[in-house]
């Protein structure tokens, strides 16, 4: 039920933003649409609604955003350099990264962050053993431990505080 409420509020906000500037006709239709969406898919949206009450999680999320944007900028400059370089300096391979995150949302965010940061693209997740397979455009460390430290550690330490 709580999960449905959260989804209802989110869907309604997105609806209101899509129909900017909102007037009352749009908002009334929006209530019905958001209610329908929440009724149909609400139970899949959030597994642990009580986590939404913790304020420090939102603060960590705010702290995570600038780090993420900075890493993304570095990633783009890195790719632009490799692509524009005449001799194409790549050394690709798929490495394994260990993760301690367990929740769906946490794993999704970690995999997305890995994909959007320098030289790495997550290929698959093995949830039972806690491994993420990562395609790395410039393999610096074939070892699981070393790769984890270079790729996942900087995000994992923040994401653990947000989603676990």
């Amino acid at each position, binding site marked *: 039920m709580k999960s449905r409420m959260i989804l209802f509020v989110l869907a309604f906000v*997105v609806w209101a*933003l*899509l129909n*900017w*500037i909102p007037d009352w006709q749009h908002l009334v239709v929006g209530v019905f649409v958001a209610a329908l969406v929440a009724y149909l898919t609400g139970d899949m949206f959030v597994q642990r609604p009580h986590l939404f009450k913790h304020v420090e999680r939102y603060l960590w999320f705010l702290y995570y955003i600038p780090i993420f944007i900075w890493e*993304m*900028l570095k*990633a*783009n400059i890195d*790719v*632009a350099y*490799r*692509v*524009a370089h005449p001799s*194409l300096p*790549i*050394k*690709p*391979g*798929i*490495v*394994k990264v260990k993760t301690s995150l367990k929740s769906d949302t946490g794993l*999704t965010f970690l*995999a*997305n962050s890995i*994909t*959007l940061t320098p*030289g*790495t*693209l*997550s*290929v*698959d997740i*093995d949830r039972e053993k806690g491994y993420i*397979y990562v*395609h790395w*455009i410039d*393999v610096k460390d*074939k070892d699981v431990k070393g790769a984890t430290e270079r790729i996942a550690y900087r995000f994992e330490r923040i994401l653990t505080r947000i989603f676990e």
Partner: protein
Amino acid sequence: MINVIHIIGFIFISIGLAFDVFGCLGLLRLPDVYNRLQAATKCITLGTCSILFGMLLIVGFTAAGIKAILCIIFLLLTSPVAAHALARAAHKSGVKLCESSVIDKYEEDGN
């Protein structure tokens, strides 16, 4: 003041276009599907987000500007997932890594 914001907006749009060009260049130059996905996902996500952000600065918080913010959020959430799904599907259907690859742990683990 408005002019300054407009100029900053155009700078963002130019940066975005430049990154999009590099993304397309990567799509053409890199050797296999995984490397190409890397260039496509990273450069085109940030490039397009940058263009949308530049547009938001120019038009302000109007109907189009708000939609630009929503597009940025959805693009950031969905584009890596799409790349992940494509890479996984490619590997499962037997696309090999290119010649110069040094390691494939995914293959070694029997997937």
